[in-house]
């Protein structure tokens, strides 16, 4: 029987090991956030100013911000999963506009009136930015940085091609692009692998030809993708692609690839938001000498000058475990000094008017001036139309970049898909 005892002993040991392991698995898997711990999720990777978040959080003394950085594209799905799960992070970065509206409508946010009152966001932020945070009559999103979309270019390339003054209307733009192409460089970089970088083209072509009011109708489903206004915009876009102005295989690249192409002189310019300056600063480029921007040209002088861009903000989950701490953190995020820190790191414009904007680099300072000069400020496509509809349009832009010739078919199938998405 000794052998059996031995076996029994070894199996008893194994059993104990199993139990220990199961116990190990159970411990430390769930932890209660302490009084001052605030769970924060955000989509700012190293290319989008992650260090700025760390810097701002480091000075938060009322508590501790426990941060989960999520990959920018994955974040879009993941935060919805987390919200639906009822155990979301306390505070999360989010885009103002239709995306915030969608999670607000589904009851996943709680009002942050206390933050707006304590930090006096009401008076310290420009009215348009205050409004961008209001849903259902109450503040639900704290603007943290806003952006301006324009043609960011490489001055060295422009100089080499002999383009001395930047184009302001369509003729000048086409002439400049042709000149750049003649110098052997692709005029326009675009990285539409993740789809959204292409949307700015659609946005501006509509805004500059049909105007912001028509665009608002299209975004809300009152106008159709088969309207002559949209067809006209796509035709313009197609002419630019057909002229060979865009890099080949735009769908193969991310927005940082496109930024790299401009930075290293493979392409002259890219239509992108001001966050590109933060990325370029990060790889050692100098504003004005290494990069600058010009506005999207006027296409129809009768149409107003609309500015375009997203507003990044912070939202407070309805199911937040620590709403008190979260409110304090949001107040910290509303502080002009912190907004400036973030703006400088990411390449954003600070919503708080008290932020010392003299510290912005010349290119960002110019962007701030241009926003002020614009007649209106619109959100880009995926923030202007409800998320399920945005999926349809974003696919269409990518399909268009793959093969612009069939845009009529793309528009009609986009219209039927969009209709279904609006209905569903």
């Amino acid at each position, binding site marked *: 029987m000794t052998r059996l005892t031995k076996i029994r002993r070894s199996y008893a040991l194994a059993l104990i090991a199993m139990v220990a392991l199961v116990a190990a*698995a159970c411990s430390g898997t769930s932890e209660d956030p302490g009084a001052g711990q605030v769970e924060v999720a955000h989509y700012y990777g190293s290319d989008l100013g992650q260090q700025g978040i760390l810097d701002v959080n480091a000075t938060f003394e009322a508590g501790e911000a426990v941060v989960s950085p999520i990959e920018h594209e994955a974040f879009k799905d993941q935060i919805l999963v987390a919200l639906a799960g009822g155990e979301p992070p306390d505070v999360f970065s989010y885009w103002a506009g239709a995306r915030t509206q969608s999670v607000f409508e589904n009851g996943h946010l709680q009002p942050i009136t206390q933050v707006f009152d304590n930090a006096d966001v009401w008076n310290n932020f420009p009215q348009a930015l205050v409004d961008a945070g209001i849903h259902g009559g109450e503040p639900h999103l704290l603007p943290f940085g806003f952006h301006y979309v324009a043609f960011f270019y490489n001055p060295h390339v422009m100089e080499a091609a002999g383009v001395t003054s930047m184009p302001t209307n369509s003729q000048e733009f086409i002439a400049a692009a042709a000149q750049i192409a003649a110098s052997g460089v692709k005029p326009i970089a675009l990285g539409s692998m993740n789809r959204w970088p292409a949307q700015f083209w659609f946005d501006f072509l509509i805004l500059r030809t049909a105007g912001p009011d028509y665009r608002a109708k299209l975004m809300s489903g009152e106008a159709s993708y088969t309207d002559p206004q949209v067809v006209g915009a796509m035709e313009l876009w197609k002419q630019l692609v057909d002229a060979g102005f865009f890099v080949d295989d735009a769908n193969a690249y991310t927005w940082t690839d496109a930024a790299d192409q401009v930075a290293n002189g493979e392409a002259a310019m890219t239509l992108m938001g001001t966050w590109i300056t933060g990325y370029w600063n990060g*790889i050692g480029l100098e504003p004005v000498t290494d990069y600058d921007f010009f506005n999207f040209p006027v296409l129809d002088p009768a149409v107003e000058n609309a500015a375009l861009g997203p507003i990044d903000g912070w939202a407070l989950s309805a199911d937040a475990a620590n709403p008190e701490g979260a409110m304090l953190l949001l107040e910290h995020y509303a502080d002009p000094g912190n907004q400036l820190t973030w703006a400088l790191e990411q390449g954003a414009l600070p919503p708080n008017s008290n932020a010392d904007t003299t510290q912005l680099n010349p290119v960002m300072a110019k962007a701030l001036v241009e926003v002020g000069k614009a007649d209106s400020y619109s959100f880009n496509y995926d923030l202007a139309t409800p998320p399920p509809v945005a999926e349809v349009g974003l696919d269409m832009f990518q399909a268009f970049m793959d093969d612009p010739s069939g845009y009529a078919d793309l528009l009609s199938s986009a219209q039927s898909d969009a209709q279904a998405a609006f209905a569903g």
Partner: protein
Amino acid sequence: MSTSTASLAADRAHSTVPEHGTGRRGRTLRRRAGMVLIAVFVALYLVPVAGVLATSLKTNAEIAERGIWALTGKLTLANYVDVWSTANTVRYLINSFQVAIPAVVVSIAGGTLIGYALAKFRPRGGTAIQLIIVSGLFVPPQVLLVPLFTMFRSFDLLNTLWPMILIHSAVGFSVCTLVMRNFFEQIPDSLRYAALIDGANEGEVFWRVMLPLARPALAALATLQFTFIWNDFLYPLVFTSARDDVATIMLGLLNVKGQFTVAYGTQASLAVIASIPTVAIFFVFQKHFVRGLLSGALKE
């Protein structure tokens, strides 16, 4: 499927199929051609693996400048230091082990119990039970996602490691039951009766007589299950979303891609770290792995 398969003992030591070819010259020629083909094939498999290793050892600046596949000389461990110290790497690894170890243990224990009961006790309805459990192999995870999500939410288990432990345990019963039932079927009942006559009860027979015999099959299953669970990406993506501190290593790969967006070297170093445990286990247990896969489906 029982007759022809009995002859297929998976791990016969030596090749018994003689080499083909008619004359000596034909044979050399054929062998040369075979070597060339093998060389191509080796390259096809070594290059991607070497690519990740090399990338993980290059500086990000060098990769940005000369591309991922450039054959440059300077190698450094900086990326490993970086990803170990600035990302949640240690946490990811601990989380993965905390999921994989209990889930491997529970799935194999449960599968063994069911498999043994089906093979030796032959309960009424056993065939139906086996059919239901084995068909678990064919349920796409997407079917389970939403209901499980709702369920774990109501038990307040989201953003913990419990969903992965529970799911992998239960889903693992399918393959473990299949393998273990097949294994115990082969063991003659006389062994069991002899022990019963000696005065042992069924539990003691199972624990002292049968289980020790099953050691190779258990090792095979452990390899299979550990690899499968360690490499799983979907469940953590859904059940621990937007929380870096409960991410397993596979989800960590995605999160680190967010943190080090254009730092390919850093991403590659975490990919290497993430692969070490499964590769190591495979090296140790490779023979068992094959046997596990084969016995699972063959001797039905």
